[in-house]
């Protein structure tokens, strides 16, 4: 056996199961869903090819499609900068040489261990309009609290606030990036008379820009795919149908799930899934394109 053949054999021996798993459980279902997106398929009857009607219906007639797009985009545009900013701010604080730094890092990371669904339930009780903790506290001060979780005005901002508790992972990545910034650069900048802000602006930010870029890309993808938080929030609020009130928390992922498993419009849901996939692909490509201008890889 040639060396090349032996290498190939060992490669397939180790990579084979993963490749087979990917092909069977990811690639094939994806291709199947692409086909289904051009079919009317209600699960209990065989798929029927209908061309682009699912896509046309989503764009032109579906009462819930555009509202769910809007909710998801608003969430992404507001939540992402807040989440990145909060994670970076905390990483900067936790990068300071203070006593018990390891302890504080662990404490601030702890909330991220919990699933988002837990936050949705716990904060759901805190923000409950009638008898919720927040409104009780406000009442003590003579203030009348809002219907935080049951008003379309407040429900999404509350969800954005709840989602920020998942800052732990980007924070840890920022910490890793900050620890890779050479000390000498700070010392040189300091000697040149740069203040704290100038050092942050001209040393820290450029050197951690790949890390910021990574967190932005992953954050955008995560925000566009939000599901568990919104679903658990609906369940915690005992909403008869997820996404209320008045579609204020009807995220794209939640809407897709409802179409697929609530109403079994698998064809329509497949079309939604492919639109989301295309959208994420496009935004990520744009991110990489724009990233070339501000991400410094040190080469």
């Amino acid at each position, binding site marked *: *056996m040639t060396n090349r053949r*032996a290498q190939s*054999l060992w490669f397939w*021996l180790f990579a*084979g*199961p993963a490749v*087979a798993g990917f092909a069977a459980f990811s690639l094939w279902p994806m291709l199947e869903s692409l086909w289904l997106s051009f079919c009317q398929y209600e*699960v*209990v*009857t065989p798929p029927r090819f209908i061309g682009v009607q699912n896509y046309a*219906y989503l764009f032109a*007639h579906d*009462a*819930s499609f555009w*509202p769910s797009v809007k909710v998801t985009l608003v969430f992404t545009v507001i939540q992402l900068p807040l989440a990145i900013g909060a994670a970076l701010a905390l990483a900067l604080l936790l990068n300071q040489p203070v006593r018990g730094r390891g302890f504080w890092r662990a404490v601030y990371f702890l909330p991220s261990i919990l699933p988002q669904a837990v936050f949705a339930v716990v904060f759901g009780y805190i923000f*409950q*309009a*009638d*008898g919720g903790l927040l409104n009780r506290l406000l*009442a*003590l001060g003579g203030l009348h609290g809002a*219907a935080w*979780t*049951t*008003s*379309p005005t407040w429900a999404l901002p509350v969800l954005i606030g709840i989602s920020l508790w998942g800052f732990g992972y980007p924070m840890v990545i920022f910490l890793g990036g900050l620890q890779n910034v050479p000390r000498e650069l700070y010392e040189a900048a300091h000697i040149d008379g740069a203040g704290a802000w100038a050092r942050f602006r001209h040393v820290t930010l450029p050197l951690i820009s790949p890390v910021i870029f990574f967190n932005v890309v992953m954050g955008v993808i995560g925000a566009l795919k939000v599901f568990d938080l919104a679903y658990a929030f609906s369940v915690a609020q*005992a*909403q*008869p*149908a997820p996404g*209320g*009130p*008045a*579609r204020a928390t009807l995220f794209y992922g939640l809407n897709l799930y*409802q179409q697929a*498993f*609530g*109403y*079994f419009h698998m064809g329509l849901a497949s079309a939604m899934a492919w639109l989301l996939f295309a959208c994420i692909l496009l935004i990520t490509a744009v991110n990489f394109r724009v990233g070339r201008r501000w991400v410094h890889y040190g080469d």
Partner: protein
Amino acid sequence: MPLRQREPLLWLTVVLLAVTGFWWAGRSREPRPAPGRTVISWYVITSPLRDLYTAEVAAFEKLHPGTEVRIFWVPGSEYNVKLKTLAAAHQLPDLFFSGDVWLSYLRPFSRDLTPLVQRDAAEFGLDDYFPAIRRAMQLDGKDYILPEYLNLSLLYYNRRMFAAAGLSEPAADWTWDDLVRAGQALTREGKDGSPPVWGCSRVEGWWGEWLIYVRQAGGKAFSPDGRRCLLDSPAAITGLKFYLEKSSRYHLSAPAGFEPLNGFVNQRVAMIVGGHVNYWLNYNQTPGLDWDVQLLPAGPASRSGGELAIAGYSISRESRHPEEAWALAKFLTRPEAIAAIVARGSLSVRRSVAEAALRQPGPRANPHNLAAAYRQFEFGEPIPHHPNYVEIMFLVVQPEIDRMLLGELSPAEAGRRAAAAANAFLDTFGSAAP
């Protein structure tokens, strides 16, 4: 041994390992049936009646030694998803829990029970079902469900709160005006940190309450053929207006979004319009809650309009043992079985059981006014039998009703927008009432 010679052996090992893994993962975990016994599967929603059902199955198996019943308990929130997934995989259970609300979309995989019902009508007492129940059992004149219990919209009220306010209890001839007057008298503003108490609850987020008012005002959600949504009719808008004004004008219900959680059980709400018979068991287990029921207050056009829905058993179209499944369905819905469920706190689908409950001497558990509950049968209406009913109501109509409650839309605008969106859905999908 050189690698070249070992190569086939390695590949063989990999393939064997993969095949063994797939076999192990996919092997059936079901125990084999005893020789000569037929196994039937029964999917049922997890409920407080679990002990009752388990005992019933044991009794059935004793009576039918050739049949073994395997019960699969499924949480209510996952039930429909599970059932449809099983249908897609052609793995449906022989017998499953069904209801007239779901029947229009469960029908493709539900067996037509008409021949069995006609064959055994005398044996299981078809005439014993209330006429309203008998109507709900059928779709297009065919039988698909053998009913076990029902839900009926009623007026629920807290007797202690009425007594404390010096009010006489609701009467059978109440109208919306009486509901408003009593509700206003029972409402207490929250002061000094104490929470408010509301005269009447308002069910938000689904059609449970507002559809009653729409119908009682003379409106309908859909045309009889199911092709048009009629929520923009003047009568329907009158119903929606009353639903809105319970809080915005009359102040007998909490503002939108402020409905107390479990308000009736926590005695923060004195009355419920609609409610659910399923909650009777909880009400009776709540210390200090003295409750009763009355006919729904009449609207400007009619007293009818409350929901009458049945739940029971359907047999899978693909069942290989329909006779055994049918025997189990009959056993679970025989008068003695229904009486056992009713004794836990429920209404009966069978006349004989209802009459026995009404004749029962001595103090009765709540509700005291059981006769009113059975009289409400006359005024109950099924929800429209439309395959997309639930979807249209939740996805298309309800958001407009939510916006009305929040003051963003007037009742007329909400009705118009809801009807337009529902009709666009119907035009696209072309569904009609089956």
